[in-house]
């Protein structure tokens, strides 16, 4: 036993692997997730009261997951804290070592009795995952338009059908499992529309086919999902997308159109389909508010940023490791490998451990896969072509495209922060989680290259991920003093 206290945030594939590896290294682990069940979005299962007879029906790699879950829940050094969210990370005083204090809210999110708790771990593993990125289009605010992730959550978690006649559109391999979940839940999927043309997909996926073969888990999933789709006879079309949703009060039809490789619309190719739901995904945005709050440096370009890690999955913040989709969108196998490496080192494991080289290889293969994924499913530069002046770019604050254009083009010296305050885009309840990357990208295009601001002491960069409150917290909850950690209901076993 190393006696190190490790907090793992996120109980998806990366977090679960991190917890297991940290336990293997001898640490005490607190595994934290906002959901009631282990598994994250990837292994989402209906709540127990649904008493699903075959929870594995919508699952992949179920036996391995079930075994890992038993192992973690039964481990004497593992505390599982479900329905727990991190609302703030408090960095240490300058000169002090160690990860930030972890401020938690425990209890059902819709209940009124959540309590505050504070953890002061020796190491923090962030495995917060990603959420759907959705590009705006006219009518995307209508009821009946779902992010693909939300639709999948409803299908997998609640066995709810989002609609009877559904179109799935966007880009990326996630469209397929979403369509499969919808079919399983009873929807009729009229079409799966991949915006990138077949040639782009082929170039991205087959440049080095042996790399894909090495990523067998992922490839297996793809083949499996595609098989289910073929059996259900769902048409899969490339180079086409939904450019508008219409309806009185909710979605009644969508307009689809053929796209060129840059995602400009081929005029005259528009077609109308009667639907009662549409599910959209244009890839994933990593959930970076906690890494940013912890002080982790990011890498990548604006709009496509990830947490920077070293070969041991360490971030630039002392005592903080990162794994899974926040370091790159690479699928579950890579997330597991990263989680295992992160958990091992966070738990104080020896760098000489025999399993590490294989894990690192698996992680590196995952990173290759991520690069291929990005190549095969780029977001075409001409997508703003389908925006109209009245198209909402921020749904919470109902900021339309014309308002954003005016604010960015007319304001003297408009800094990102000022444009945000002027248009209110990103200031609503979602706090730019949905529209942030889009608004950042559109503003950068409209403004042209802005001179870089010289960083000032004490002013955090006005990045889209700077969100001091990682979760909304009720004033009453905030005002009550935190409970001591020991007073918490323990979830050993279960």
């Amino acid at each position, binding site marked *: 036993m190393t006696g190190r206290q490790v907090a793992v945030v996120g109980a998806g594939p990366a977090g679960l692997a991190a917890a297991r590896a940290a336990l293997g290294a001898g640490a005490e682990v607190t595994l934290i997730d906002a959901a009631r069940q282990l598994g994250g979005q990837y292994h989402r299962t209906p709540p127990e009261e649904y008493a699903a007879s075959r929870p594995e029906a919508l699952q992949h790699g179920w036996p391995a997951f079930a075994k890992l879950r038993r192992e973690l829940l039964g481990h004497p050094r593992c505390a599982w804290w479900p329905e727990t969210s991190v609302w*703030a*990370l*408090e960095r240490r005083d300058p000169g002090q070592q160690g990860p930030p204090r972890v401020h938690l809210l425990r209890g059902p999110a819709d209940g009124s009795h959540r309590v505050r708790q504070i953890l002061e771990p020796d190491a923090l593993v962030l495995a917060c995952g990603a959420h759907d990125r959705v590009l705006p289009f006219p009518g995307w605010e209508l009821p009946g338009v779902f992010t693909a992730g939300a639709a999948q959550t409803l299908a997998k978690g609640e066995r709810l059908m989002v609609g009877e006649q559904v179109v799935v559109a966007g880009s990326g391999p996630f469209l397929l499992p979403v369509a499969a979940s919808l079919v399983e839940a009873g929807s009729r999927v009229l079409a799966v529309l991949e915006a990138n043309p077949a040639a782009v997909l082929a170039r991205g996926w087959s440049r080095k086919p042996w790399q894909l073969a090495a990523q067998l888990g992922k490839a297996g999933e793809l083949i499996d999902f595609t098989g289910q789709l073929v059996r259900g006879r769902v048409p899969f079309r490339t180079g086409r997308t939904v450019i508008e949703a219409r309806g009185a009060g909710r979605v009644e039809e969508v307009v689809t159109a053929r796209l060129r490789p840059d995602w400009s619309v081929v005029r005259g190719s528009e077609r109308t389909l009667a639907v009662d739901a549409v599910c959209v995904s244009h890839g994933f945005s990593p959930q970076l508010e906690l890494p940013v709050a912890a002080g982790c440096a990011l890498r990548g370009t604006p709009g496509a940023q990830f947490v920077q890690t070293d070969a041991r999955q360490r971030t630039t913040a002392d005592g903080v490791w990162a794994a899974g989709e926040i370091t790159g969108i690479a699928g579950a196998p890579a997330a597991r490998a990263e989680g295992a490496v992160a958990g091992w080192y966070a738990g104080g494991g020896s760098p000489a451990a025999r399993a590490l080289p294989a894990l690192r290889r698996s992680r590196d293969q995952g990173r290759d896969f991520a690069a291929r994924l990005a190549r095969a499913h780029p977001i075409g530069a001409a997508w703003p072509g389908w925006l109209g002046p009245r198209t909402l770019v921020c749904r919470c604050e109902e900021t339309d495209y014309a308002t954003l254009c005016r604010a960015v083009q007319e304001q003297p*010296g408009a800094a990102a922060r000022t444009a945000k305050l002027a248009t209110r885009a990103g200031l609503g309840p979602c706090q730019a989680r949905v529209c942030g990357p889009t608004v950042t990208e559109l503003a950068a295009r409209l403004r042209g290259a802005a001179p870089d*601001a010289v960083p000032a002491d004490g002013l955090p960069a006005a990045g889209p991920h700077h969100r*001091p409150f990682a979760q909304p*917290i009720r*004033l009453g909850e905030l005002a009550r003093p935190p409970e001591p950690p020991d007073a918490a209901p323990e979830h050993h076993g279960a």
Partner: protein
Amino acid sequence: MCGTRAVVVGAGIVGAACARELALAGFAVTVVDRGGAASATTAHGEGNILLSDKGPGPELELAKLSRQLWPQVLAEIADRSASGAESVRAVEWEPKGGIVVATTAGGARALARFAAGQRAAGVRAEHLDAGQLAAIEPLLTRDHQAAVYYPDDAQVQPAAAATALLADALTFRCELRTGCDVLGAVTRGGRLIGLRTSTGLLEAELFVNAAGPWAGEVAARLGAPIDVRPRRGDVLVTTPLPPTVFHKVYDADYVGAVSSDDGGLQTSAVVESTRAGSVLLGSSRRRVGFDDRLRPEVLAAVATKALRLFPVLATASVMRAYGGFRPYVPDHLPVVGADPRLAGLWHAGGHEGAGIGLSLGTAQLLRALVLGRPAPIDTAPFQADRPAVLGQTSTQEDS
């Protein structure tokens, strides 16, 4: 003054207001900021334009002048052009009035004395009985001892206000350079004649240091240090709510906190709605240098005090918090005037949390001083040539 060149350092609300006054007076103005316009302290406050928190004295006189100027200046900008009118709409000028509530008997006595002094100095301050208070602020706690209504308190969206002032200045001979950091001074014969900046040399006849909490650093780089320090304040923002809070409502402790010298944490409740429906909850004051870290216990203290005024907010969700650094001078008075050591350098700042409200009056005083004309109020209390500004007082060190 046609053609005389002026450089304003800082594109926050005070810099924007000064640039506008100087441009109106015929100067050729360049505004520089190392970040973007209106993106630092100005974008991290509530947009207060208050008379209610100021006791009789020079700051109250400046506040009265500014309060009178706000509607006038906004009307001028709106009348100038369609885009001016558009920018003024974004300012969300709201003369909503303020209510100060005392929750203890001692607080009630102090509030009554304070309000009487203000009335003698020409401030409208009306005592409210419990029934009147409940009628105009129905969700406020009934558990209070006294309340005073200040009809002249107002609120703006501060970044939009600075942007409107700056945009108006830019319609005259005025230029804005963002991403431009001031590095040092070029002097000749003891006179400041240029700034070395990250984007090159800037020559002018007149330089205004309006760098807010960074004014001390800018002044030091120019070889004429002044004692302006950052004092941090945090504000909580709720998700949009149905109408709950109708005025700017704060507890009587606030007045004590504003004028306090204590470097430690001070909190008092300030509660108000924005036009978008969010409720803003302040306020805290801490001297922590430029430490931008979130402090959950500070926010918890703010929440606790706000709930004492509005228990109904217990179930409201806070979706974000923002912290800003306010420029703090040890004697709590703004600095407006010429630097006593370096000719050509002027200072306009040190307003702590009142800079939004006081910006317009400050700019008008600066213009009068620069032109050698009579000012509408006495400027002597604000001069830079005083011990507190020149760092000659000893106060508790920043922690």
